[in-house]
């Protein structure tokens, strides 16, 4: 992050595929030119030494940059160059000479210029003065007037194992181990203290006096060798723990600034006094790469440059950021040099050999944002386009749901062929019906055709519970246009419940050629014989439904030829069908009148046989030509029985909410106990647990038991939902026959009183149906303006089912009186402003409640009412039976038995009792709890 960038004065790329690191750059007047201008000296890990003398010319278009004449010297060495430094290493003169560090050698060269006599300038020469072979692999070296010698620089070489060797110019002085060295840190010589400062592997700044190092010898000053194996332990003068690895050290000796030592760590910069006290430190928010103090511009402060791995050059005065400039690369080392043309140039080098001499300036760090794609502005055209778009938006905006347009032809076609016969060998597995040994299965052949090559098709076969498939999802790697893929899947009944309908849904998802993901869905109807089997008819049953037709009766043998079973050869007046693990439905055909009757002990079970009967009759009579066969229903609607289904499903839902409430309460209790226990365990002084652990375990068991209860309740709810779904299908079908509805009206009815009973915690069937029916009642079926004003109730679980029952009864009543559902559709569109006009004028403005009793009386014939009381009891009992698994652990059998004949009021109490009884007896566990108590105390 910076406002400005560095300005380039001179730059070049050095070498090809050469590597450089900190130490490879040195700036000095190495040829001892009289003008004193600096040269740039570079040594690479590939062993090439280069000396540059940048002399760019100022032209009209800025500085001329690099020219080949700027290269002063280039020389290749056999060994890598690790570090180059200029100093007074020559014993003969006080001139600057160059010291080059190779992995196992230290050499000193003098570089001198010989003035040329011709135009191409002077010639430079590199002469070796002396060299030392080293015993250990080196890391870095530092130099200085060790021991206070005047006008000379001695060299201290640090090796990779932390040994330092001192060379007094041509002669070797001594080698010493630094204590605790593992990896070498940066090392520098402080002339004022005559000491070395380094950062050790223990992440500590340590200062060693030269004198101490010099005298700490085993052999008493005689025959010092580089090849030492042991040594006296030297102690540091002072140390300071910086808590991180040092990357670089700089010794500050500016006249204005207090003498201090700057240490660049990986995450901060520390400034220490020469006696090892912290002056200040600065935490860095970036990765630094190198440090260079360059001046002290005001009294008592130090100015330094930090280059970062985020490509910026930051200039600090103590801890205050003074300037930030963006660089093109991450420098490994930077120096400040004075050239003939320009003083104070920053020389930077990166690890691939990009060498730049730059200065700071107010060139903005130009970041050119990419152009936003903009069109040629043509206002007339734009206006036209805008108007068109607005029009389309307006059109679309009318429809609340924007339905995607279906393409005329899908890329993928799925065909399903349901085999006409049941499988010879049943494929059913995992059947949960206790009464049946084996259930039949039926095979579906799914053919997937593609218009073009389509890859990676996911095919899913969804059979609604209790039906199941032997495999539900397939993935087809690819389908080619001419070779359709074929799959086989078997469907069978697995769960012990009545199926709500006999459709399986098959969906294939794939990526179309345009890249959009598309889904093709298909429904396949299954034959009824998959779930029912022929049995002998049963004479009497609780519920009877009679269907009238306008054609003479026909033998049932003719219309159910494939489902005769044991009745084959009978007269065809009565057939019995039994659901697997379910009740028997008997179909009777009247011999004289044009009627058919279905009878069964359970209302909802009649749905599938009834549908089968009517559709087969339809097929039989309307075959070939346009037939005029019609079935109708004249009896009273079995609303009371239907209400029982609604109630039992509702009971299950209530049970589910109760269970989840209980579960939430127990879970929060569990958390509270955990919290308390945690506090106790964390406490320094041990305190008794006060049976909290017992409580914890008890609560845990309760939660587990409640979890089981929830699961069982879910199962019961699924069964109840299926029953309700069957019942709703049946009711709708009967209403249709009863009022002779058109298909469109029937669609409206099915949408309102939906046979789809989904299990959802948020919105259940009861409130959704209630809302939908209320909507119908206050719109198309409204009698008076008052009806239309009724506010819809919120979509939350109601306290009882009274309302929805009342509204369904009202709906049936109005439909029975001849109200039509169809006109509503046309009216609905204009509804927003205009109030719907009531279609029939109500005879009296009675309250809804009285209407309800009327409605029920009208719909339910008297003989039903006589049965009402008996039925009610039965309904309750069933509810209890289905709810019995509600959180009942095994030991509670006796109470479960007792509750069989209890009323509704007692039910909740019984349930609570059971849930309470799930708490394990605390007395039983107290012994164990005490023991744990002791252990806990012992531990802490």
């Amino acid at each position: 992050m910076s406002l400005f960038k560095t300005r380039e004065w001179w730059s070049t790329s050095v070498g090809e595929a050469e590597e450089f690191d900190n130490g490879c750059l040195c700036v000095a007047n190495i040829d001892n030119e009289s003008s004193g201008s600096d040269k740039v000296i570079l040594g690479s890990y590939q062993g090439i030494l280069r000396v540059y003398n940048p002399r760019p010319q100022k032209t009209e278009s800025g500085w001329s940059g690099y020219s080949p004449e700027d290269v002063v010297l280039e020389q290749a060495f056999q060994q890598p160059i690790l570090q180059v430094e200029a100093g007074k290493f020559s014993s003969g003169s006080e001139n600057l000479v160059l010291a080059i560090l190779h992995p196992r050698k230290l050499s000193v060269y003098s570089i001198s210029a010989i003035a040329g006599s011709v135009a191409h300038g002077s010639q430079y020469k590199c002469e070796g003065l002396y060299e030392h072979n080293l015993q250990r692999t080196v890391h870095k070296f530092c130099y200085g007037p060790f021991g206070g010698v005047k006008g000379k620089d001695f060299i201290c070489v640090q090796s990779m194992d932390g040994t330092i060797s001192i060379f007094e110019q041509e002669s070797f002085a001594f080698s010493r181990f630094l204590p605790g060295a593992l990896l070498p840190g940066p090392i520098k010589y402080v002339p004022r203290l005559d000491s070395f400062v380094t950062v050790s592997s223990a992440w500590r700044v340590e200062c060693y006096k030269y004198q101490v190092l010099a005298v700490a010898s085993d052999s008493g000053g005689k025959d010092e060798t580089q090849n030492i194996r042991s040594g006296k332990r030297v102690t540091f003068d002072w140390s300071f723990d910086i808590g991180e690895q040092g990357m670089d050290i700089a010794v500050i000796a500016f006249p204005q600034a207090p003498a201090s030592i700057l240490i660049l760590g990986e995450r901060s910069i520390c400034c220490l006094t020469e006696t090892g006290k912290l002056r200040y430190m600065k935490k860095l928010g970036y990765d630094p790469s190198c440090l260079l103090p360059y001046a002290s511009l005001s009294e008592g402060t130090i100015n330094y440059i930090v280059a970062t791995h985020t490509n910026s050059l930051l200039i600090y005065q103590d801890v205050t950021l003074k300037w930030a400039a963006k660089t093109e690369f991450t420098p490994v080392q930077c120096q400040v040099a004075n050239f003939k043309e320009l003083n104070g140039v920053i020389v930077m080098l990166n690890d691939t050999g990009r060498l730049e001499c730059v200065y700071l300036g107010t060139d903005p760090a130009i970041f050119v944002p990419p152009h936003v794609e903009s069109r040629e502005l043509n206002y007339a055209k734009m206006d036209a386009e805008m108007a068109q778009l607005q029009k389309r938006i307006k059109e679309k905006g009318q429809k609340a749901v924007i339905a995607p347009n279906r393409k005329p032809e899908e890329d993928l076609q799925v065909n399903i062929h349901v085999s006409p016969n049941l499988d010879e060998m049943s494929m059913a597995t995992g059947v949960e019906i206790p009464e049946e040994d084996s259930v039949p299965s039926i095979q579906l052949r799914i053919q997937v055709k593609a218009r073009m090559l389509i890859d990676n098709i996911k095919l899913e076969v969804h059979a609604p519970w209790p039906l199941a498939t032997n495999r539900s999802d397939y993935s087809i790697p690819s389908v080619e246009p001419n070779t359709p893929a074929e799959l086989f899947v078997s469907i069978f009944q697995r769960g012990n419940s009545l199926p709500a309908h006999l459709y399986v849904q098959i969906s294939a998802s794939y990526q179309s050629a345009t890249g959009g993901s598309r889904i093709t869905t298909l429904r396949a109807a299954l034959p009824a014989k998959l779930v029912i089997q022929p049995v002998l008819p049963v004479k009497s049953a609780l519920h009877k439904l009679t269907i009238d037709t306008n054609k003479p009766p026909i033998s049932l043998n003719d219309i159910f030829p494939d489902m005769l079973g044991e009745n084959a050869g009978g007269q065809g007046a009565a057939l019995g069908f039994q659901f697997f693990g379910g009740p028997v439905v008997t179909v009777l055909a009247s011999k004289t009148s044009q009627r058919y009757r279905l009878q069964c002990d359970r209302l909802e079970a009649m749905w599938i046989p009834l549908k089968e009967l009517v559709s087969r009759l339809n097929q039989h009579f309307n075959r070939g030509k346009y037939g005029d066969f019609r079935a109708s229903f004249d009896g009273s609607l079995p609303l009371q029985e239907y209400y029982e289904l609604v109630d039992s499903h509702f009971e299950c839902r209530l049970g589910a909410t109760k269970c989840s409430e209980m579960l939430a309460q127990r879970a929060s209790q569990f958390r509270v106990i955990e919290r308390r226990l945690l506090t106790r365990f964390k406490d320094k002084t041990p305190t008794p647990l006060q049976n909290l652990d017992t409580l914890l375990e008890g609560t845990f068991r309760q939660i587990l038991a409640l979890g089981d209860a929830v699961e069982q309740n879910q199962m019961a709810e699924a069964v109840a939902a299926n029953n309700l779904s069957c019942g709703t299908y049946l009711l709708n079908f009967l209403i249709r026959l009863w009022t002779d509805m058109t298909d469109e009206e029937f669609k409206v009815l099915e949408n309102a009183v939906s046979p789809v009973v989904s299990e959802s915690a948020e919105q259940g069937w009861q409130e959704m149906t209630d809302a939908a029916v209320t909507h119908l009642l206050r719109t198309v079926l409204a009698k008076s303006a008052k009806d239309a004003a009724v506010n819809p109730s919120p979509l939350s679980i109601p306290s009882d089912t009274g309302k929805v029952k009342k509204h369904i009864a009202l709906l049936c009543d109005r439909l029975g009186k001849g109200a039509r559902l169809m006109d509503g559709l046309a009216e609905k569109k204009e509804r927003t402003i205009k109030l719907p006009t009531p279609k029939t004028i109500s005879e009296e403005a009675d309250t809804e409640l009285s209407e309800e009793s009327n409605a029920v009386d009208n719909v339910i014939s008297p003989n039903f009412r006589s049965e009402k009381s008996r039925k009610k009891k039965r309904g309750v009992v069933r509810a209890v039976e289905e709810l019995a698994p509600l959180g009942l652990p095994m030991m509670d059998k006796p109470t479960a038995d007792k509750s069989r004949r209890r009323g509704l009021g007692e039910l909740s109490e019984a349930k609570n009792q059971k849930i309470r009884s799930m708490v394990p007896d605390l007395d039983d566990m107290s012994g164990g709890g005490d023991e744990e108590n002791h252990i806990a105390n012992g531990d802490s």
Partner: protein
Amino acid sequence: MDPLFLAYSYFRRRKFKESADICTKLLEKNPYDQAAWTLKTRALTGQVYVDEVDVDEEGIAEMLMDDNAIANVSRPGTSLRKPGTSSQGGPSQGVRPTSQSGRPLSGFVRPGTQGGRPGTMEQAIRTPRTAHTARPVTSSSGRFVRLGTASMLSTPDGPFINLARLNFSKYAARPNLAKALFEYIFHHENDIRNALELAALATEANQYKDWWWKVQLAKCYYRLGMYRDAETQLKSAIKQQEMVDTFLHLGKVYVRLDQPLTAVETYKQGLEKFPGETTLLTGMARIYEGLTEMDNAVKLYKDVLHFDNMHVEAVACIATHHFYTDQPEVALKFYRRLLQMGVYNAELFNNLGLCCFYAQQYDMTLTCFERALSLADEATVSDVWFNLGHLALGICDHNLAYQCFRLALSNNNDHAEAYNNLGVLELKRGHVEAARAFFQAAFVIAPHMYEPHYNFAALADQLGDLQSSYVSARRAVENYPNHTDSQELLKQLRQHFSLL
């Protein structure tokens, strides 16, 4: 060239992978090479290193099971849990929107600025709208695990160091190995328990004299949720040697203990020793921001800029403050500075666009938003459209506003503010039912906003549904006690009820 030297050079140049590879080869040759071993631990640590001070992931379990708070009912202005109780009134909620926890929106997204401290599990699980990922259940899952599993990637044949077989007491006694090893265990392996054991043994081996080990102990305790122990260690470390990191960690511990004022004191103490340390100043400013003492926060952010004028967080927070205190021109300057510094993202252009609009520089407004839209990703594009909708409202183009809000919703159907505004627009068009549905959707998604509650209450009041009106008005006042309109509506309703 010596391979170890090369590895060390790579390490210095932040080429951790190359460095670790060379060390692996060296260790294959000589498994007992301590230098290579240390270098490899440090290279592996460097790959995943994140400064512990910046890590502030608070999981759901930590927030709910937190039993470190001193008082559940704290005195006004002394707790981060109940922001807005301080005596210096922060910005009004009507002007500056608040986050889910009731703090004003910050100008800079940090970990922890979005969630806050919820009271219940349900509230905790609810994802803040701008976060877009669910909060981790505990901080030992979540991002730390992802950091921890980094080790598996780099070493396919198992972890580099088998911690279970390490003799910690042996390593603890070797100061030159132990520190690198600790950082490796803490950052790379993310094994806090073992790190704690090593730190405890090392502290002992150093005769309880090394401040560094005490800070590391505190870091481990902090991660384990033992804040009081961490506090003791940090205080002891400060007594030994004052370092910036120690103060930062201590401040963080106090924030976690919900003692913002003590944390501020700690930072102040640190600033006495290290004047101008920007991290300390920022820490203080963040706490003041959390306490809704905006004046103090902005003052501190300005101090930060004095010492580091490239501090993005400070610039952004000051800009946001100016924007919400009705000085869009000043905010514009700050945001422009961010742009010049190289920040280039949709959020910035969005803010620039808004500032331009309110500073009446209409020519720039649309260009800025155009750029914001072209830069926006899925997470931000809905916010940009929402702001464009505001702009359209400002120039009275209701149609455009309506379409903008719809676009905001089509990109993110949880955008409660857009629902609320759509509701208002629908109400203006006379579609009462639609308006009601939109308001309902808005306050279901974001129960912490007062606007949809009030709007719903006002609408219900007009329709004569006094009960719902009363309930919603109460919720609005709960969320924003100083909202005059809600209060008046409530008063009116109360009067009405008492008359009945």
